[in-house]
Each structure stands twice: as C-alpha cells, then as structure tokens.
C-alpha cells in the first residue's frame, strides 16, 4: 500500500462530521500553528516540504507564499481555488465532499501563515451541494471556536466564506477567479501585477488549489522535512489522481509520487487494468490540457525508462515525447477510441469555455473545432491537418491566460503522435461511422 496522508481517514464512517474528524486528530495543525509557530516559521516549513501547487501548474507553494506583499494596513487574502473544472479532474470534489474539515483546517492554518483575516473558498457552481457541505462544516467550525474572533485565545481573528461560481472553466485561472469573486465576468487579468501584489480587491492575495491547502495540514503536523521525505526528487509528497476512462476501477487515488505509470494503470490497488481486457491506446495524464501520449510513451520514456507518476518523469522528453502531471486528471483510452473524435471533443470544450477576451483564443478555438468537425463529417482535406497544426501554434503563447495553451496542446500532441489517424479520416471518410453531433450552435435559449 502506498502512503496516504490526505485520505488516510477517508474510510472512517462519519468523517464528514466535526466530531469524528476531531476525534481522529482533526484541527491539530491549527492548534500547533497558533500556539507554537509564527507565520514565518510556517512559510518556511511549507518551503521545506517542497509542496507544489496541485491545481495544475506545479509552482512551489512556499515560494508563491513568500511573494505575498505585506504593506501596512492593507488586507491580505487567501482564496481557495475549488473551481475544479479541468476535464478528467474530480479529486477536489472528492476531498471536499468526504473530508470537508480538512480543507477548512488547511484554510485556517494557511491564512494564519499569510496574515489573511478573511478568506474565501471559490467553488464551481455545479458543486452546489458540495458548497452546502462546506457551509455546514464551516458553521460547525465557528461553533467550536476554530473560526471567528480570537481563535484559541491567540488573538488571531479569522472569517471563512464559501463563494459559488456559475459555470465557467476559465474561472479556474486564478485571475479570472478573482474577477469572478469580485462579481464580474470571469475574464483573466493581464499580468503583472500578480495576485500576490494586487489580487482580490487589488489587495495582496494568494490563490491555492484545494489539495494544496489540504496538504498544508500534514506539513504543519509532521514538519516540512517529513513531507519532503515522501515522493521522489522534486515531486515531494502525495498526489491525488483522478482516474477515469476505460479502466476497471475509476476513482480518486492518493499516490506517493514515484510509483510507475504501469503500476498505476494495471495494479489492483489503483486502476485495475483496462476495461474488458482491451489494449491501452493512449493516456491524457494530467487533465485534458496536457499532451496526449500513446501507450508506449506513457508507459516508458523515449529512453526506455519506466515512466513514473511524478512531475519530472511525466515531463521527461518535453512535449516531443513527454507530457505533464497537470492536475492529475488521468484519462485512459483503450484501443477502440478514436483520437480524432476525442480531440474534437476536447476542442469543442475549449471553444465553449474561451472567455472571448483576447483574439487568438476567441477566434482560434472555434476555428480548430470547426476543422475537426469537418474532418469527422467526412469532408476533411489533407491540408486540414497542417492547418490545424499551424493554428494551434499561433494560439500557443499568444494569449492573455493559459487557456490558449490548454486549447493548443491537445491538438499539437494528437497530431504529433497520431497523425496517421487524421489522414485516414480524411482519405477514407467511409471508415467514420456513427458520428453524433452535439454541436453547440448557440443552443437555443441558454447562455452557454
């Protein structure tokens, strides 16, 4: 069994409730932080732990925290990014639903470390019922004195609120999230300034993913060094992986970073192999944005080394032969999957979710989707594959926020590794069967 830190008490009946959570050591990190540590010491521990942002970018959390500006008399905020909407990712939902107090505990300790007196959990609107679970847990935490004025007599006052969104992938981008939290359209901001300097209400702000904040709890309890002992190299600690697609045992798994991809896919402890005993065709390892890899490259690096579940190993080979750990949304596709159609599905998603603020993403995402749709309908041209390649290259790196890159990478990688399949679709349209179109076409009456 791999080491579990975040989900170690996941199996305990009633762990959702305050009493059971507390009986199993809950809120110990807040006690330790408020009674025995200074904010600076906590930031140091987080730095030592090597924890990296679990939302997708993998930026070192301690370093991010150290960038927080601290001007006199200006409020600071911690905002939890619970907008989980990267296709293939559902770990934050699982964590919030199963162990809501873990997130609240992490928010209190982290806010203390950052000097935030009010913090918000921005949760995607579709998770309304999860927001209710969190609200209830927050109420319990207030009742027990973990939130509010003078917590544990330490003089630390702290309020925590849940804020629901209303359906927009882009709000997972931290500056779009802040705009949305301010009551505006979720248009990403132009950086700099970064949120650590001017974030929510133009005040210094840190935005962290749910899993990142939850990981602060064991880091405070056991120390940054102990956390850094887990995992491999610069991929310290454990990672929640959302496993889905054509596997026998989909679900959320906490893994110690460094296990092999092969073990993760085939062992009974994790995914339990491919459904129906079919062959593995491809994997999108870190949520829909990251490059898709064919079976041979996801299981082994180009150099023939076993690929590991870690930031570095998954990225080995760059985008030519590697991918990214991203948010840990691990989507498995068996031999029956059409890569072209899967790509169209992703491209439709990015087209639908583009905020429309900057030209390359607003116009380019729709263009790519239309070309893919044309190929799927059997009207593709051989030049379409090159055109797609060219368009994605003109979006990548040219946009305000990373959604442009996220829309470009799946296209680039699918063509890079499965070009022949695109050409086959173009040359033998008769091979395309059963194409169903749930194409957007301004779906009557809805805002989407």
């Amino acid at each position, binding site marked *: 069994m791999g080491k579990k830190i975040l989900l170690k008490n996941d199996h305990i009946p009633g762990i959702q409730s305050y009493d059971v959570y507390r009986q199993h050591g809950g809120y110990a990190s807040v006690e330790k932080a408020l009674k025995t540590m200074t904010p600076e010491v906590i930031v140091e521990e987080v730095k030592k732990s090597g924890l990296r942002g679990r939302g997708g970018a993998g930026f070192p959390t301690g370093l991010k925290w150290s960038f927080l500006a601290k001007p006199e008399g200006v409020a600071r905020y911690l905002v939890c990014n619970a907008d989980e909407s990267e296709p293939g990712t559902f770990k*934050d939902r699982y964590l919030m639903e199963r162990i809501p107090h873990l997130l609240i505990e992490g928010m209190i300790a982290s806010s203390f470390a950052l000097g935030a007196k009010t913090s918000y959990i921005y949760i995607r609107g579709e998770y309304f019922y999860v927001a209710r679970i969190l609200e209830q847990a927050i109420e319990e935490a207030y009742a027990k004195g973990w939130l509010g004025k003078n917590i544990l007599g330490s003089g630390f006052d702290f309020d925590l609120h849940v804020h629901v969104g209303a*359906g927009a992938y882009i709000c997972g981008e931290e500056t779009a999230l802040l705009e949305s939290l301010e009551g505006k359209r979720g248009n990403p901001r132009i950086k700099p300034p970064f949120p650590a300097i001017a974030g929510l209400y133009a005040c210094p702000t840190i935005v962290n993913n749910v899993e990142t904040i939850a990981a602060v709890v064991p880091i405070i309890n056991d120390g940054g060094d102990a956390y850094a002992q887990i995992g491999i190299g610069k991929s310290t600690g454990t990672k929640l992986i959302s496993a*889905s697609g054509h596997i026998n045992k989909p679900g959320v798994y906490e893994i110690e970073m460094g296990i092999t991809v092969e073990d993760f896919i085939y062992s009974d402890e994790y995914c339990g192999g491919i459904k129906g005993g079919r062959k593995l065709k491809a994997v999108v390892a870190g949520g829909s944005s990251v490059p898709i890899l064919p079976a041979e490259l996801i299981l082994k690096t180009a150099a023939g080394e076993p690929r590991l579940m870690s930031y570095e190993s998954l990225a080995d080979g760059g985008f030519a032969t590697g991918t990214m750990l991203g948010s840990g949304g691990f989507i498995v596709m068996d031999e029956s999957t059409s890569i072209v159609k899967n790509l169209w599905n992703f491209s439709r998603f990015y087209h639908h979710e583009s905020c429309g603020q900057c030209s390359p993403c607003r116009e380019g995402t729709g263009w790519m989707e239309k070309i893919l749709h044309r190929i799927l309908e059997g009207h593709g041209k051989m030049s379409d594959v090159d055109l797609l390649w060219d368009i994605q290259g003109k979006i990548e790196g040219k946009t305000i926020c990373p959604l442009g890159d996220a829309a470009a990478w799946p296209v680039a990688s699918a063509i890079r590794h499965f070009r022949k399949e695109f050409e086959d679709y173009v040359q033998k349209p008769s091979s395309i069967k059963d194409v169903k179109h749930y194409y957007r076409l301004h779906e009557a*009456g809805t805002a989407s």
Partner: protein
Amino acid sequence: MSATKEIKFSDESLALAEKLMKRYPEGKHKSAIIPILHIAQAEFDGWLSPQVMNYVASILKIQPIEVYEVASFYSMFNLKPVGKCLIEVCRTSSCWLLGAEDVISHIEKKLNIKVGETTADGMFSLKGVECLGSCGTAPMMQVGADYYENLTLDKVDNLIHRFKSEGKRKSYTDQAESKSV
C-alpha cells in the same frame, strides 16, 4: 409564466441576499452577484428575465448592464425560460468516452426534443454541458442540485419517470436528495 408575478424576493430570500452581501468588505458587495443570481433563478421559474436581472441590480445598487454582462457569461444562468427539470448531461472527455452521446440521444428520443429544447408540457429541458467533475462515475447528468452518476439508459428512464410524476421544479439551490461518490 412569470409575466404577471411581481418581481420581488420572498422575505427569506431577501434576508439571505443581504446576509451574502455582508460576506464581502464594505463597498465590495457586488461580489455577491453570482450567489444572488442563483437565488433569483431558483425563485423566479428557473431563468433570469431582464426584469429579474434589473431587480438584482437594484438590490446590489449597480447598473443593470453589469448584471446582464455577468449573467450571460456563466453557463448555469438561463436567460430564456426552461422546463421544470433542466437535464444537463455531461458530454466531455470521460463521459464522452463512456457513452454520453448515447445518453443524450436516448433522452432526445424519449422526450422528443433536441438538445437546447423544452418539452411541450414545460416539464423538461435538455442541455449538453461541459465536464462536471464526475469523470470517475461517468456518464452522468445533473438535475438541479443533484448529480446522477454511472448512468445506464434504464437508470435514465427511471429518473425521468420519477421527475415527471413528482412534477417539481429542480434548482441548483435545492437540498441535494442523495449522494453517491
């Protein structure tokens, strides 16, 4: 539908809206716009008419256009009337890999409507939505606050039958009826 009804929150909703506005610093109450629009959509027949949005603007003391801008950006807000049960089927990624298209076409046939349409009796609307974070329990659909996961066509039939016999409007703000992860 709501044409004759006066646009005004119930006392309970108004109190909730005021409580929500207080969660944000002085002068930053516009932050509460999305939560309040959710309350409004639930209270006024599942969609946001211009009159409802103007009312929300008056509560927040902002220009109506600021509400239109926000409401039209987010996919959970309906700017046209919808059926009592808005069936939102996830069509992205893992749900697609595991049969979302079959679920959608099954519902289309069963209710005799296309995606984006509402049944003649005003009971159901069907919408294809993007990843709802239920990939491990795909395929899935959301109706109101509830996620219905690991769908089979039989399961879909039973749910539709049940919704129809209950005849209730479903809102995101409802208490979720059951949960399964």
